[in-house]
């Protein structure tokens, strides 16, 4: 059992975080589910619920299939004002190294830019992650986006 992080793992992990940010900002939504394992957990949850022990999340998905359903919703059914988003993600903090898995966290800020409009701070929080080794490289077994932002500026359509 490995309990220390070697340089290769660290490189792969930071690359995973950078790749994720790049993918969700690219507008190619089909890239997003591929960062996850088949039985993954993805949650977008207000910090208030997280800290008070309330289970409700703004989005709560418990399989890669649900993420694909969300992508279909974004592309085909959810009417929304088009916007760009830009993630700025901090360096991950490693909380725990287990056999083939890491528990880590990272701060994030997402900016939103609507057409003909100024860029604004959209959603700010931290990722609480479980990352696992798979034959296809590192994947998120769990990604919880716990956001500080007290008011969602109308709506969130694209993945955080």
């Amino acid at each position, binding site marked *: 059992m490995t309990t220390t992080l070697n340089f290769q793992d660290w490189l792969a992990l930071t690359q995973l975080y950078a790749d994720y940010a790049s993918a969700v900002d690219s507008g190619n939504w089909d890239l997003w589910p591929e960062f996850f394992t088949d039985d993954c957990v993805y949650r*977008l949850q*207000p910090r*208030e*619920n997280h800290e*008070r022990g*309330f*289970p*409700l*999340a*703004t*989005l*709560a*998905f*418990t*399989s*890669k*299939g*649900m993420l*694909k*359903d*969300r992508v279909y*919703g974004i592309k*085909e*059914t*959810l*009417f*929304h*004002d088009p916007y760009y988003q830009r993630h700025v993600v901090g360096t991950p903090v490693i909380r725990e190294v287990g056999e083939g898995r890491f528990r880590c966290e990272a701060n994030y800020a997402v900016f939103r830019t609507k057409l003909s409009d100024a860029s604004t701070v959209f959603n700010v929080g931290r990722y609480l992650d479980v990352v696992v080794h798979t034959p296809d490289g590192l994947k998120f077994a769990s990604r919880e986006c716990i956001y500080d932002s*007290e*008011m*969602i*500026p*109308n*709506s*969130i*359509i694209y993945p955080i």
Partner: protein
Amino acid sequence: MNASSTVFPDQPVWEDDGTHRIPFVAYTSEAIYRKELERFFYRNHWCYVGLEAEVPNPGDFKRTAIGERSVILTRDADGALHVVENVCAHRGMRFCRERHGNRKEFVCPYHQWSYTLEGDLQGVPFRRGVKQDGQVHGGMPADFKTADHGLTKLKVATRGGVVFASFDRDVEPFEDYLGPTILGYFDRLFNGRQLKILGYNRQRIPGNWKLMQENIKDPYHPGLLHTWFVTFGLWRADNKSQLRMDDRHRHAAMISTRGSAGTAEQVTQVSSFKESMQLYDPSFLDIVPEPWWGGPTAVMTTIFPSVILQQQVNSVSTRHIQPDGHGSFDFVWTHFGFEDDDEAMTSRRLTQANLFGPAGFVSADDGEVIEFSQEAFESKPFHRTLAELGGREVENTEHMVTETLIRGMYRYWRDVMEAPA
């Protein structure tokens, strides 16, 4: 009308006695908005403040809002509920900054005036002045009575675990306020079972607050805007439906029972329906009927002016409208379950919550259309919207192909807003 401007009128101009064409200025005028706050939120009406389950223990409190006024729901040592205004009687400070917590008393930090959870003033520092060299300096005047300087106390009504309050001591009883028909739908959802809070979602929608009431009084849009509903067969044109209002047409219930006869394609008549489309993960629609439904699979109830009660299959929530200026409101969702829910039902309610809220598959787009309506209203307030589907009258119906509930709400709006002061 403002004679000097044809684009920016002062007053709404209705085309006749009806309410089927709503002036844009009703959504854009700050003066009209302030009159709405006064006549709907602060006088004669009951406004939503929360659920009893949010303050289960003695000393618990929750800060919230009625209109633009900050209020605190408290439970005192004897278990009684109170609602007080979050404005210190001394210098007017909004003293309560936490959104929830547990206290034995409230103390305004500015000069440490302290209040009971019921809102009575109990302590004023230096009330008797300061003794120095055998003399008493300062202090409050001799005729100062703490009893005269409590927090503003609101009238409180609770029913089925839901708490409403009113600044108006003379407001009619809550049951009369809802009227028997809407009360029936209220009691269907809140039938006395203990509620279990699942959590909150908060969004700020840049549109007039009435647009959210109208959105949930508009059964025309769900099958057209919310193509997700249609794509996956949750909305069908053969859904059995009823629209109901109270006698004054201010509140409403949209009641629907999901159709099941024939293939959805034959009955939907909406091009976005895709028979072949399947969810990758069908657990979004793992719907299990509950005995308390008594038939209908969805009942959306609008309680004017402050709250929407949602039952969409297994997902239940309150949606609190907190206006902030004529062009924006905060929309606070409280999802809940019931004490007798097993783990599977709780998890089902949480999964179906993905459909609703600020990122929901079928609710995110409601906020978007409200924003873009408001944008247009601001640009040409002399114009008007059209709400003539199903005719120009106000009536209960046995179908959804009508905007009667919107006309009903504006019938009431005109009655109240056009009455002499």
